[in-house]
Structure formats: structure tokens, C-alpha cells
């Protein structure tokens, strides 16, 4: 069942490519229908989810490359199921948003459906090699999206994105091979590796392996200082590409922390947790500060992603520093981290789609060119206001549930540094309100016409509704995450 969900989109993509006679209209609606079907299946998975003895549901294990001890092993638990659902939701939103796309629709649809399979694959993979294959393919897919449908500087940004993150994934592969070699019998299976704890007492080797894995994941997350591929990639990517890049692809990095680095290298992770915490805090503050100085709406949102993903890194670092007696705080921090991944995906995905609308209407991302847009585009201004307040962590939205848990859980680990990181919350509020004030309020500067269309509303509205649903009734999400978070 899980495998059907994962591979359905790519099969549809092949079908689209194999039917060159189909009109753009048919292609678009097929894309939407397949994405909707995937989402429906994921909802069914969620409803029927009951983890087995291993902690995973819908587990499948088939021989794949037995000679290197790698299998097709997939399954979902409380850490991955929310991300699988997020992926399905965002891809549907992007499919709906792209209903007005006219440029090489067939290739775009096929590429997005391929990317959907790849992204779902990363989150369900329970084998390091399988994880790596999907992880790498996501880079390839996104490269073509940016290069093929991006703005003027897209080719350059796409190459930078590809090379930078590809280098990161090579480091990741090195780390995986290190784990494989250390295990006996040799295996790439994550659950076997967790049980074996192959790096226990390995000293410097364990540190090197963790360094490789952490660097590989940090590039993808991205954390400071390996984040500079992100702004150009976002600025030049098409809106839907940005939404997937920020909403789903960045989560692969942080998901790797909780799925691979924390459980498979527990001692090393704990020993170096203060470093992780520090990287998280620097990402939070530095990301927020750089975002504050931006004049380009999309670039600003890109930097807030560094800030928001910094909270996740901060939480997984702090969680490992908390003693066993502080189980509640630790679970709170990890739950907050996973919630933040979902929340950031929904909210930033929506913000990038909204920035696409802004560009569509005004032909620029430069905030100083706008003013008083709320008069001409009231619905657009309204939904952006909601997204902005959601993103700055206002209670009632998912961001608060995430950030409150992260901070409340983490403060006990290192009160002063974490308290300092709280300033990131204030700086994001400053930058979002300033940006909103400049673009939407005050006197009108430019003539802009065309409020949100129906498809745009249908694409973006549900993301905000979900953010509110999680903000007001978080139990449906937390009930899934908490059991998995408590074993980390």
C-alpha cells in the first residue's frame, strides 16, 4: 500500500510522457487528479496507521541489492508519516497552482510527479542506500525545475544548487558507507543499524562518520554556514518549485537528523550535541538578521527558512543534552522539531506561492516598488496577512505549537543560549511586519490589477486552513508524533 502511494506519481509521469497526443488541459488535470489521489491514499494511510512492534506501520522489506546488504525496506512512523502527508498536500497545492501554467506543461507535470515519488521515497525509506538514492534524485529533479522554469538567473542558480547539495550528499554517502563498514554483518538497514549501534566505542571513526552525515544533512537543511545555495535557488525558481524546495526538500535534511543521525549514532550525537545546538542557535539568529536586511520579498522568505529550520536543529541538539530525568522536556523538544517541519512546510509553501502571485501581478519581488496593495488586491492581502502572522509564530497557527514546544523543551538544556535564540522570534516578527507594511499598507504606489483567482485561492487557502487546524487542535498531529519522539 505504501509502495503504491510512493510509485503512483512516477507511473503517472511515465504515462504522461508516453502519451504525446494529450492536450495541455488534459495533462494539467491529470496532474491534479493524480496528486489528489495520492493525498487521498495518504489520508487513508493516516487513518489506518497503527505501528507494529518495530514502531513502524505499513512496513515492507524486499531484497534489492543483497550483495551489499541493502534492501527495499520502507515503512512509516510518527516522525515520517506527518512529512509524507505534508508532501502529498504540498504537491497537490502546487499542481492546482500550476493550472494556469502554459510553458511546457507536460514536462513540468512529469517532473513534479517524479519529484513527488522521490520525496515520498525519502521519507518512507528505512534503508540508507534507498534513502540516499531518493535523496540524490530529489536534487536532480529540482535542478531541472529551476533550470527549466525559473526566472532570468535560473541556469546559474540551478548549477549552484545542484553542485552544492550534490557535494553535501556525497559527504552523506561517505558517512553511510562508514556505517555499513562498521556494522557486522554489513548492512545498510536503518533498523538493524539502530539495534547494532555499530559506532559504539569507535572513537575518532565515529566522529568522522557523524561529521560526514551531519555535514551532508546540514547542507540540505540548510544551516549556517552552508546555506548560501538557498537564496539564489529560491529567488530564481518558479513559485511552485520554491514551495516544494522549501516545503519538502529542506525537510529531508532535518528528517535525516531525527531518522538517521540521532538513533544510529546515539553516543556521538550526545557527545557533540552542544555543537549542534550552537549551529542551530546561530542559524536562528543569523538567518533572521540577514532576512531582516533583505529588500527582495522572496529572498527574505528564503532566509527566514534558514531561521525556521534553525529552530529544528536547535531542538534536536538540545534534546540530546537533556538528562534522562527530563524525559518530558526532551520529548517536547523533539515533538516540536517534527511539528516545526510540518508547520514550516505548510506556511512557507504558502508564502512562496503567494510571492509567485506577487511577481505575476507586479513583475518584481522588490518590496520598495510596492505600497498599499491591500486596496487593489484585498483577498491577496488578507491571505498574505494570515500567512505572515502564521510564519512569525502567532498562537492559533501551527508555528506556535512548534516553536513553543521547541523553546519550552530546550530552555532547560542551556538556558542562556536558548533564551538568546528567542530573539529570533522577535526579529522575524519585525521583518514580516515591516515587509507587510511596505508592500500592502499605506499609500498606493503602483497600479496592480487582478486579485487572487479561484485556482490560487484553492491552492493556497487549504495550506492556511491546515496551519490553523494544527494551531487550534494539535492533538491529531501530536498523537502521531509523540510516541515516536519519546524513543529518541
Amino acid at each position: 500500500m505504501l509502495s503504491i502511494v510512493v510509485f503512483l506519481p512516477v507511473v503517472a509521469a511515465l504515462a504522461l510522457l508516453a502519451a504525446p497526443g494529450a492536450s495541455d488541459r488534459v495533462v494539467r488535470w491529470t496532474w491534479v487528479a493524480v496528486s489528489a489521489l495520492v493525498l487521498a491514499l495518504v489520508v487513508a494511510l493516516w487513518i489506518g496507521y497503527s505501528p507494529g512492534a518495530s514502531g513502524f506501520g505499513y512496513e515492507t522489506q524486499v531484497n534489492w541489492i543483497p550483495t551489499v546488504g541493502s534492501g527495499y525496506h520502507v515503512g512509516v512512523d510518527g516522525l515520517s508519516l506527518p512529512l509524507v502527508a505534508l508532501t502529498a498536500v504540498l504537491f497537490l497545492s502546487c499542481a492546482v497552482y500550476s493550472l494556469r501554467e502554459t510553458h511546457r506543461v507536460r514536462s513540468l507535470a512529469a517532473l513534479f510527479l517524479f519529484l513527488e515519488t522521490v520525496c515520498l521515497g525519502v521519507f518512507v525509506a528505512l534503508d540508507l542506500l534507498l534513502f540516499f538514492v531518493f535523496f540524490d534524485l530529489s536534487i536532480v529533479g529540482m535542478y531541472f525545475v529551476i533550470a527549466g522554469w525559473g526566472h532570468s538567473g535560473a541556469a546559474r542558480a540551478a548549477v549552484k544548487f545542484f553542485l552544492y547539495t550534490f557535494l553535501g550528499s556525497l559527504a552523506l554517502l561517505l558517512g553511510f558507507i562508514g556505517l555499513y563498514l562498521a556494522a557486522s554483518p554489513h548492512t545498510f538497514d536503518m533498523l538493524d543499524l539502530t539495534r547494532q549501534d555499530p559506532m559504539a566505542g569507535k572513537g575518532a571513526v565515529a566522529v568522522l562518520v557523524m561529521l560526514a552525515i551531519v555535514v551532508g544533512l546540514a547542507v540540505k537543511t540548510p544551516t549556517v554556514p552552508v546555506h548560501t545555495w538557498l537564496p539564489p535557488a529560491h529567488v530564481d525558481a518558479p513559485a511552485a518549485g520554491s514551495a516544494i524546495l522549501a516545503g519538502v526538500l529542506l525537510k529531508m535534511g532535518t528528517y535525516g537528523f531525527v531518522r538517521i543521525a540521532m538513533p544510529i549514532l546515539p553516543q556521538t550525537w550526545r557527545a557533540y550535541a552542544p555543537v549542534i545546538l550552537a549551529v542551530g542557535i546561530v542559524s536562528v539568529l543569523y538567518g533572521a538578521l540577514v532576512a531582516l536586511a533583505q529588500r527582495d520579498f522572496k529572498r527574505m522568505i528564503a532566509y527566514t527558512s534558514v531561521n525556521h529550520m534553525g529552530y529544528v536543529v536547535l531542538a534536536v541538539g538540545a534534546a540530546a543534552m537533556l538528562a534522562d530525568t527530563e524525559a518530558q522536556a526532551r520529548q517536547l523538544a523533539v515533538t516540536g522539531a517534527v511539528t516545526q517541519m510540518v508547520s514550516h512546510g505548510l506556511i512557507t509553501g504558502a508564502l512562496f506561492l503567494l510571492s509567485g502571485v506577487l511577481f505575476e501581478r507586479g513583475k518584481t519581488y522588490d518590496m520598495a516598488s510596492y505600497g498599499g496593495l491591500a486596496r487593489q488586491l484585498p483577498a491577496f492581502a488578507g491571505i498574505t496577512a494570515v500567512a505572515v502572522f502564521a510564519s512569525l509564530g502567532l498562537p492559533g497557527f501551527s508555528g506556535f505549537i512548534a516553536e513553543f514546544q521547541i523553546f519550552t523543551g530546550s530552555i532547560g538544556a542551556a538556558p542562556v543560549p536558548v533564551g538568546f535564540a528567542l530573539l529570533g522570534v522577535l526579529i522575524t516578527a519585525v521583518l514580516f511586519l515591516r515587509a507587510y507594511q511596505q508592500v500592502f499598507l499605506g499609500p498606493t504606489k503602483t497600479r496592480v490589477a487582478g486579485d487572487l483567482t479561484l485556482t490560487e485561492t484553492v491552492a493556497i487557502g487549504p495550506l492556511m486552513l491546515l496551519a490553523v487546524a494544527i494551531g487550534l487542535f494539535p492533538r491529531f498531529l501530536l498523537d502521531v508524533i509523540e510516541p515516536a519522539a519519546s524513543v529518541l
Partner: protein
Amino acid sequence: MVLWLLVGVPLVAGAALLLGGRRADRAAAPAGLAVSALLLGLAITAALTRPAISAEFLDGMPFALRVDGLSAALVVLVPSVLLAVLAFSVGELGARFFGLMLLFADAMLVTVTATGLVPLLLGWEVMGAASYALIGFHWAEPGRARAGTIAFLATRGADLGLYVAAGAALAGGAGALGLHQLAQLPDGWRDVVAAGVLLAAFGKSAQLPFSFWLSRAMAGPSPVSAMLHSATMVAAGAYLLLRLEPLLGATPWAGWLAMWAGVATALALGAVAVVQRDLKQLLAASTCAQVGFMVLAAGAGAVAGGTAQLVAHAATKSLLFLCAGAWLAALGTQSFPGLRGAARRHPVVGVTFAVGALSLAGLPPLSIWLAKDALLAEVLHRSVPLYLLGLAATALSAAYAGRALTLALSAPAHGDAQRVAIGPWRWAPLLPLAAGAAALGLLALPWLPPLKWPELLASALVAAAAATAAAALVHVRGEVAEQDVLSGWLRLEQAARLAVVRPLDAMASACARFDERVVDGGVRLSAAVATAAARLAGNRLEWSVDGAVRGVARGARAMGRLARRPQTGQLHQYYAQAVVALALLALLLVIL
């Protein structure tokens, strides 16, 4: 169930009005009034039945609300003021206003019934966001949106104190983050919690040094001011400190800090209020000062007196702001030269304004007189200097209230005061508020600690003397002289700009430059180095490696040619070669 309805109905109704947009404008006023009337009924029921509700929220931290004695007072207060304010706004403002006001009131209801930090923070911050939208309500006009932004950011900065408090409470062992658990936390963590709570409360109630945002908040419509200055926002900060009085009691430095901060704000902002030339600015500064008394009360453990002050002030201040709003609409001004004689132009507005101003001045037997005396009596037990400073602040209250009233009653600058038309929706809501401003203090007597006559008399005399002096001064000297520092709210906003905003912006642009030049520059540099290395390898290394390979091939070919030489195909030459080879072998054997 009552409590679920109390917090659920305004949420749903407010959200519906906001989503409806302009289409809902016509239905907004009746819907808003109906909902707030329903809320008032629910609130009275809740105050009498004292319900409690709870729902699972975060792990081990439920969303739990309860109505107890302190909450009951506020739960009834909020819809009462809301009803009056919404009635006042009928016919002028649309669905967006009514929707936001319902959310604003709802957030306050959640805040005052919360039993833990999680629901408290939820209501607390949503209230701040609603105040942003309400202050910047007329966002198209220059400066309005900015005012909302400043107000929101100032309060949100302080709100971070509650996040710290939550983390510290959890680390200290209060797993459910219950408000009643905070006072029992171990030393250290309890101090952190107290510091966070004080910071958040000072920010929300516009105590020093956060007072400037309240001046900016005047950019909102008058009904917003009436609500924000009485039963929500500023009241929330005072409420939080009154609610957590046990925590302040258990942490002595926090109690003293609250007392001193409260009295300092009451004095400083009282002085600011005395010299304001704009009625709304005067009232705003006086709000800071009056809330200062509540903070003082919380620090001194005078919960009953502080609550009485909160309720009495809420009725008084919402009344005064609505009067100012009525005059603004009728006369087109809110500054004093234009408001001279305003109270003579409409009997109901004039009389109710007079009642409000006299109550604000602390004159007997009106509400604020009794409330303030109840709390000052407790302060006297703690510290005589603080009591005397409190009395001095009372004198300032009387001075600014007396001045405002005298100006409003005096003969207008030019000609006689003509009657102006003010509709019944405008004046009718003033009546119940005026009744509250006059009589709530007496009604609260059963809950207040027994009052002593000498103290009551002392404060009444101080207030009467100060008010009379102010009135006399207005008659003799006319307008007060412009005072740079005081008129400009002690330049607090400039100070905040200089101390916080400028460095933040400087740091942000420094970081952005660093990011562009150093961090990304490093990446670009390594890419350039890699490209250069590749070019080098392509041009030189590749060439020489290739050359070496070619050389090896050439050598091999030469050797091959050499090896082909003996292969002549002629037998006699092979024999000769074999003889030479054998001879060499024999020689080798001999030598070895």
C-alpha cells in the same frame, strides 16, 4: 459548557465576519451586538456558576480554563465594555472592525480564565495581534499601520518573557505549566519565571520603559482605544500580575520591582498626562499611570484593591475614550483648543464625561477613589515611602483629570457653545459606563479589606486639592506650556529606537554583507579555485599526462622496431644468433 461557549462563540462569529469581508458589513453591527449581549449573559452565568473546562493540548499541558473569583470580575467586565463599545460603533465601522473586536475580546477572555501558561500565552499573543490590526485599522492613512507595528513589536518583545517563563517552569518541574504551580518552583527557576512574567506584564500594560507603544496606539479608532485601554491589553498585564501575586510574594525582589515600577510609571506618566494637549494622548498617558497603581497593588499583595482598581478604571476609561470619540466625530478635533467648551455642547456626553473625569481624579465617592485607597492602604503596610509616592501620583491623576474637565467645561475660545447633534447610538452606551465609573467602587466594598477613614480622607483631600489647583491654573493661565520631554512621552520611543532598533538594523545589514561577501564569497571562491584548477589540469597537466602516455607509446614502438630487427626470416642468421646466445650462456656459466 458555558465556558466553551464563552470562548468559542466570539471566535467563530469573529472569524465569520472577517471572512465575510465587505459582504458582511450590513450584518456586522447587529451580529456583533447580539454576540456581545449573548457573551454578557454567558459571562454572568459563568461568574455565578464558576465552571472549569479542560482539553488535551500539548503533551501534559492541557488547554484548561476556569472561572474563579478574580476571573469572574474580568469575565463580566470584558463583555460589558465590549457591548458598550460595539453599540457606540454602530453605523460607522464595518465587518472587519466588529470581527476583530470579537476576536480581541475573546483573546482577553481566554487570557483571564487560563489556568496554565499555554492557554494564557495563546490568548495573550492573539490579543496582541488583534490590537495590531485594530490600531492600524485605517491602514491606508500614513502612519497608522506603522503605529500598529510599533505597538505589536513592543508588546511581542516583552511577550518573550512568557516563553522563557514557560521553559523555566518546565525545567523547574512544573510539568503542566499551571499558574498555581509557579510560586512553588525551586529557587533559581522561580526567579527566572518571575523575571519573564514581569517583563511580559510590563510590556502589555505599557509600564516603563514600554509606555511609548500606548501613545502610538492612539492611531486606532476611538472605540478601539476605549476597549484597549480598559478591559483588554493593558488590563491583561495588570491581571497577570494580580493572578500571579503568590509568585511575586514568593520571590521578594520581584514584588518590590513590581511596586517600584508601578509607582514610577504612575508618577512619570502622570506627569506626561498633565501636559498633553491632545485629549486622547492625555487619556493614554493616564492609562499607563492608572495601571501603574494596579501593578503596585500586585507587588504589595493587594489583590482585591488592585482588581477593584482594574474594574473601576476600565469603566471610567472606556467612558472617557468614547466621549472623546463622540466629540471627535462631532467637532472634528481631539485637541484641547478645539475641545474648549465641548462638554457644554451635548448634555449626556458632557455629564458623563464629567463623571468619568471626576472618578479618574480620585474624588469621593466615585469608584477609583475607593479602589485606589484600598490598594494604597496595603502599600502603607509594606512601605511608607511607596505610600507617599502613591499619594503623589494620586495628586497628578487629579491634576490631569481636573485640567481636562476644566477645559471641556470652560467657555469656548470663540462665541458660545452651539449644541451639536450626537445620535443615540453614540450617547446611550455612555450611561451604563458612567454608572459604573460612579458606583462600582461602592458595589465592590464587600470584597475590599476594611478601609480606614483617615487614609480615605487623606487621599480625597489630596485629590480635591490637586484637581482644584489644576482647575484654577487653567482659568488663570490658560493652556499649559509646551514641555519637550514630558509632551514627547519622555522620549521613550526615540530611546527604544536608538537602543534597540538602530543596532538591530545595523547588525542585520552587517550580517547581510558578511553573508554575501564572506560566506557566499567563500563558496564562490572555492568554485573559482576549482574551475582554475580544472583549467590548469586541462591545459598543462592533461597535456603532460597525455604527453607521458604518448612517450610511453613511442618508446614501446621503438622497442618493437628494435625487437623486429633480428626477425629476418633467414635461417643462417638465426643459427648465427643461436650460436652467439649459447656462447654468451656458456660464458655466464663459466663466470658464475
